[in-house]
């Protein structure tokens, strides 16, 4: 039964890669990258039990943290760049 989840996760990672490659805006690409990271965590967790090596769970744990921090960092970078380029609509209450 682990095989089904592994294959579903792999197919979803492929679909996320396709969306990241042809996403029209940069936010589509970021969304796909975030989804790819989450699916990698799930994939590592399932593979740890598929091969009977629970050590992989540590990798999944570390990957979850790194993925979150990476996505937030890229989002902050893009927001700073948008703010510096004369943003069209500044709410005024958000000045970092």
């Amino acid at each position, binding site marked *: 039964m682990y095989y089904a989840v592994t294959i579903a996760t792999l197919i979803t990672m492929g*679909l996320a890669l396709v969306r990241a490659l042809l996403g029209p805006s940069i936010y589509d690409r970021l969304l796909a990258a975030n*989804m790819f990271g989450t*699916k990698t965590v799930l994939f590592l967790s399932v593979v740890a*039990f598929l091969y009977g090596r629970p050590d992989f769970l540590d990798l999944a744990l570390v990957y979850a943290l790194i993925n979150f921090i990476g*996505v937030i960092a890229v*989002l902050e970078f893009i927001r700073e760049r948008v703010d510096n380029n004369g943003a*069209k609509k500044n709410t005024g209450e958000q000045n970092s």
Partner: protein
Amino acid sequence: MTTVIDILSWVFLTGGGLFVFIGGLGALRMPNLYTRMHAASLTDTMGAVLVLVGIMLQAGLTLATIKLAAILLFLLLTSPTASNALASAAILSGLQPQEGTVRPGGASE
């Protein structure tokens, strides 16, 4: 008892795989960014919960279950936060959600 736990775990794992696949399909096929975000965050929460709970039922009461619970906690904390930050950054950059038949970009300038 073992059979019951096995069947329950199988149901959880299959449901999680189905959710993950449907969410990936939606993230590829949906028409604009916010609907894609809806599909992707569906897989981030429901699919992850189902798959990890299914594996937890298989693992029993060991250290692996604690690690899986930590992964589940982190995912449940971080992926809605990432989705919220993504939507907020997209809104702030002027990408308006479409309403009805409003053309894209028509209301942002």
